[in-house]
């Protein structure tokens, strides 16, 4: 027994345990065994399979949980489907009341949830008490607000339907809230699968939600491992999948849902940079690093795991970090005076150990504090690597543990280069007291979230989500709501102004006469602002529906696509051109197109087998559309989100980068303009694959673009076999997004191929009314939201 007198002399810390009693009582009330929560009640798993959930801080089993199989998932989806009509028909205010009740329920049972989470996951009670659970309540509050405002703020949009949601084990309940709150606010019903390591709080929430009056079937929870997740992903009656987890699994889901028509949002892995410039407040940087990589044992998708520090101060910072690490405390998750708890499971601990050994083998310098971790659970000490090169494994792969790698840079440009030297793009943290530097660097980093002089700040009002292979879609804020909404007029789509693409034919007829013949027109490809011959010297015949040969276009191949992608990257400055300048160029295109309206109408008419007059409307619409996006070019503003910091959170609409656009066949000119104009208006550079059978409006457009001051490489046009070229674009790892408008089979190919670099896709095969296809929907598809957190105050 340590005496007061002894402690007075040592001034040591002692144990400060939070009681686990109420949480264990809750488990006992359920007999420490859980079925699935479907249709508003607990149901036994149909196949009887179950597994143990372990407390990683003690290795003691907590409860036995169902491994849901096909029948359970079927029942859950059926329950959600059954609940959907009534739930989605509720007025926004009624759904707002439900979400408000959920927020209150979370607050009323905050400590139970916090303790349960800490037991289940191994994370410290301080974090669950101060961060996880308050943020859970915050998300339900915030989205009660969106439910209330949905009718006015999302007019013309309605729920997607039944949503399958799969969440990870690192923030078990918080991820549930991020997924469930917007889904329910928008009027969807949910089948949720928590991670197999950490299902308890999700089950507890399902019960609380039921007690709070949520209608049966609106929120269904099924438990199990990846096999259960797979059943949800592949379920035919699920309309959308929302997944948070590893990029590896995200890829599988992308492939599995390809061509299914399921909406998809993925929040995946990261290897986020933590950049320290030489004028930063170094002591604050040290605490920032603690919050970045020793938060939640480093099991954070957006953890600042790559410390990039100015070379001149690296030694000082590393010395300070080591001193700080000596003072970190690792211990039982329910101890109120620890910094880090346990790693979630042995498999994760093993992964960390393996990667750390790899780091040492590859020559990096390992440093760990002198104290030892407890040995009765799955603990791992805070770890710092120096002498790390970008080529090192530990600098590239996501470790998902308390392991920081340090690299140095010489200049701000090199810092940005190092920061972006990763397939991921989830988050970044930038430390400098120089506002010019901070605001210069933030937009240059490829990441969905950038924290200036702070890190790992989250709020329901601000969107969270990645660039590149960190996924797509946002969670939180208005930008997050779109993931759970779709246009309600989708059903009516294509009823007006529907024009069928003519059926291609193989036989052709060359018009002959004794008059002076027209001069031959040779259509090449349009790459890097120049008309260039195709890589292979083949051409394709373009016929009118009558079989009349209208001309021949270049048959582009994958090398032409490669060249066009390089040209599009070389034109990256377009993204930094002012909206005003981009708008001027779009106006100029419209002007030059209008001058030749009759000629274009003649071309489109000839390809469609219709008279010029009947397609004149389409050309006029294309001109007007160019005007619209010229107008939008300096008006598609971002937002300043109301997050609870003294500062601003800027939601910036950034271009995605290099985009491939495969155009619809039914409106060869208007369809192309409707897609290309919004893409370039917001700063993307594009590789356009026009209609395969009716490309002549596109090829004739070259001269319009050339006459309109479009910078070289901003718009590249490759004619040829559309579906094959679209697939090449989808497979290209240096293309950031692909839009495909065509048939379902090729659309599926595009979606499947996009999994290579997890590029964003927009694929449609249902006919669309192109006369009406304009506006924010297109601008949203052409941009990604970056949230920049800027706390201030001197």
């Amino acid at each position, binding site marked *: 027994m*340590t*005496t*007061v*007198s*002894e*402690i*007075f002399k*040592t*001034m*040591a*810390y*002692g*144990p*400060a345990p939070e009681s686990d009693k109420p949480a264990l009582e809750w488990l006992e009330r359920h007999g420490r065994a859980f079925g699935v929560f479907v249709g508003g009640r607990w149901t036994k798993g149909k196949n009887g399979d179950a597994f143990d959930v372990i407390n990683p801080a003690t290795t003691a089993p907590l409860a036995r949980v169902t491994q849901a199989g096909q029948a359970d998932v079927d029942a859950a989806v059926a329950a959600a489907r059954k609940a959907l009509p009534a739930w989605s028909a509720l007025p926004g205010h009624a759904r707002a009341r439900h979400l408000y009740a959920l927020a209150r329920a979370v607050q009323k049972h905050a400590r139970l949830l916090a303790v349960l989470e800490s037991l289940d996951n191994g994370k410290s009670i*301080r974090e669950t008490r*101060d961060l996880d659970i308050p943020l859970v309540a915050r998300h339900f509050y915030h989205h009660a607000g969106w439910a209330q405002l949905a009718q006015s703020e999302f007019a013309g949009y309605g729920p997607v339907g039944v949503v399958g949601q799969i969440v990870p084990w690192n923030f078990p309940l918080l991820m549930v809230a991020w997924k469930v709150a917007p889904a329910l606010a928008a009027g969807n019903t949910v089948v949720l699968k928590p991670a197999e390591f950490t299902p308890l709080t999700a089950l507890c929430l399902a019960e609380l939600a039921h007690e709070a009056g949520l209608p049966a079937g609106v929120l269904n929870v099924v438990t199990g491992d990846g096999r259960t997740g797979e059943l949800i992903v592949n379920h035919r009656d699920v309309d959308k999948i929302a997944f948070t987890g590893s990029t590896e699994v995200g890829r599988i889901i992308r492939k599995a849902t390809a061509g299914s028509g399921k909406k998809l949002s993925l929040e995946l892995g990261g290897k986020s940079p933590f950049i320290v410039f030489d*004028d*930063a*407040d170094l*002591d*604050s940087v040290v*605490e*920032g690093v603690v*919050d970045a990589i020793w938060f939640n044992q480093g099991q954070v998708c957006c953890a600042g795991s790559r410390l990039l520090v100015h070379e001149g101060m690296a030694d000082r910072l590393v010395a300070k970090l080591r001193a700080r690490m000596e*003072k970190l405390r690792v211990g039982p998750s329910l101890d*109120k*005076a620890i*910094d880090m708890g346990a790693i979630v499971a042995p498999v994760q601990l093993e992964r960390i150990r393996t990667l750390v050994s790899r780091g040492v083998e590859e020559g990096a310098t390992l440093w760990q504090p002198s104290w030892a971790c407890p040995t009765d659970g799955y603990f791992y000490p805070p770890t710092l690597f120096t002498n790390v090169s970008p080529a090192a494994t530990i600098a590239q792969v996501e470790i998902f543990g308390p392991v920081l790698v340090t690299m140095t840079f010489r200049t701000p440009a090199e810092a940005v280069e190092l920061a972006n030297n990763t397939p991921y793009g989830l988050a970044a943290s930038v430390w400098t*007291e120089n506002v010019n530097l901070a605001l210069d660097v933030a937009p240059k980093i490829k990441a969905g979230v950038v924290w200036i*002089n*702070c890190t790992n700040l989250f709020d329901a009002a601000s969107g969270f989500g990645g660039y590149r292979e960190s996924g797509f879609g946002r969670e939180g804020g208005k930008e997050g709501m779109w993931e759970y909404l779709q246009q309600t007029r989708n059903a009516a789509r294509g009823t007006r102004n529907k024009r069928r693409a003519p059926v291609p034919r193989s036989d052709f007829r060359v018009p002959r006469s004794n008059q002076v013949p027209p001069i031959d027109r040779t259509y090449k490809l349009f790459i890097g602002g120049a008309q260039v011959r195709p890589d292979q010297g083949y051409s394709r015949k373009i016929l009118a529906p009558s079989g009349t040969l209208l001309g021949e276009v270049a048959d582009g191949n994958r090398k032409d696509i490669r060249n066009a992608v390089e040209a599009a990257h070389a034109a990256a400055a377009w993204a930094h051109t002012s909206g005003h300048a981009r708008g001027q160029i779009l106006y100029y295109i419209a002007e030059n197109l209008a001058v030749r309206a009759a000629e274009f109408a003649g071309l489109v008419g000839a390809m469609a087998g219709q008279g010029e007059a009947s397609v004149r409307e389409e050309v006029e619409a294309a001109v007007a559309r160019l005007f619209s996006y010229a107008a939008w070019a300096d008006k598609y503003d971002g937002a300043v989100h109301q997050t609870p*910091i*003294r*500062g601003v959170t800027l939601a910036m609409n950034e271009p995605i980068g290099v985009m491939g656009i495969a155009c619809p066949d039914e409106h060869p000119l208007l369809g192309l303009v409707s897609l290309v104009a919004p893409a370039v208006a917001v700063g993307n550079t594009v590789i356009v694959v026009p209609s395969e059978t009716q490309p002549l409006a596109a090829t004739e457009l070259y001269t319009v673009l050339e006459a309109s001051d479009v910078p070289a490489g901003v718009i590249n046009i490759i004619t040829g076999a559309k579906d094959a070229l679209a697939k090449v674009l989808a497979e290209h790892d240096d293309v950031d997004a692909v839009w495909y408008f065509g048939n379902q089979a090729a659309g599926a190919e595009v979606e499947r191929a996009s999994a290579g670099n997890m590029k964003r896709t927009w694929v449609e095969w249902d006919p669309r009314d192109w006369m009406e296809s304009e506006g924010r929907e297109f601008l949203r598809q052409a941009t990604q939201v970056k949230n920049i957190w800027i*706390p*201030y*105050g*001197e």
Partner: protein
Amino acid sequence: MRALRVNRSAVERRAATIPTRRTVKKEWQAAWLLRAITCIDLTTLQGDDTTGNVLRLCAKARRPVRHDLIEALGAADLGIKVGAVCVYHAFVSAAVKALEGSGIPVAAVSTGFPAGLNPLPQRVDEIRASVAAGAREIDVVITRAYALTGDWEALYDEIRAFRDACGQAHMKVILGTGDLATLGNVARASQVAMMAGADFIKTSTGKEPLNATLPVGVVMTRQIRDYAERTGHTVGFKPAGGIRKAKQALDWLILIKEELGDRWLRNDLFRLGASALLTDIERQLEHFVTGRYSAAHRHPMV
């Protein structure tokens, strides 16, 4: 000096999480509270101070906790007493006499406390007078104008003059952080005070609108740490003003342990400027001993 950077938002976040990251319970809390008592500069700095209430303060300084509680805590052999008694110059002699043999030093606030705007010769003389009257510690106040206008050389010269006048007496330099406008100024003033020979740097007079806050404490302790790393000199720290609850005292101790280390958890390098605080600590100690919540009137008043 001007290149010193302090990020207020980050510092505030650190300050906010220090009390949530650490806590001490049961025996540990009792022991830490006893430690806090030994670090208290038991203070009275009121316009209506008389010899009578100063003597009462001195008596309390010698026996800060009821003897039965000390016995119950098993702390009798620790010789618990406060760190110093802090008074205006007028009461230095009386306090020195009252504390004779106790080993408790008398601290005098000086140099035109609290505004510090008297003529410099007078302020220097005031220090000499208090030292002559037996004060072993002198709490001086700086001319805040020097910090606000960035005249760091003038501030340095002023504190040097105070240092010389203090002689062997310990000098605590009060920065008046509530008047300094920015945490950057707090950091710079801390550095200048240490360079000019401060034994302690102290947050506040207790008379500014904003007293000792944890963010200010984070900044000042980090400067002390930095100064020790650069020069090898250990300088003490004294938050003062507004510290009334035992919980606050624990928060300050945790801050010191985390930002500076155990070496600073002794009263040669850490003081808490307070008076009402002691009563609250006594109540918490009684609660630890009896398991029942205590009342202020059960403890001899300060």
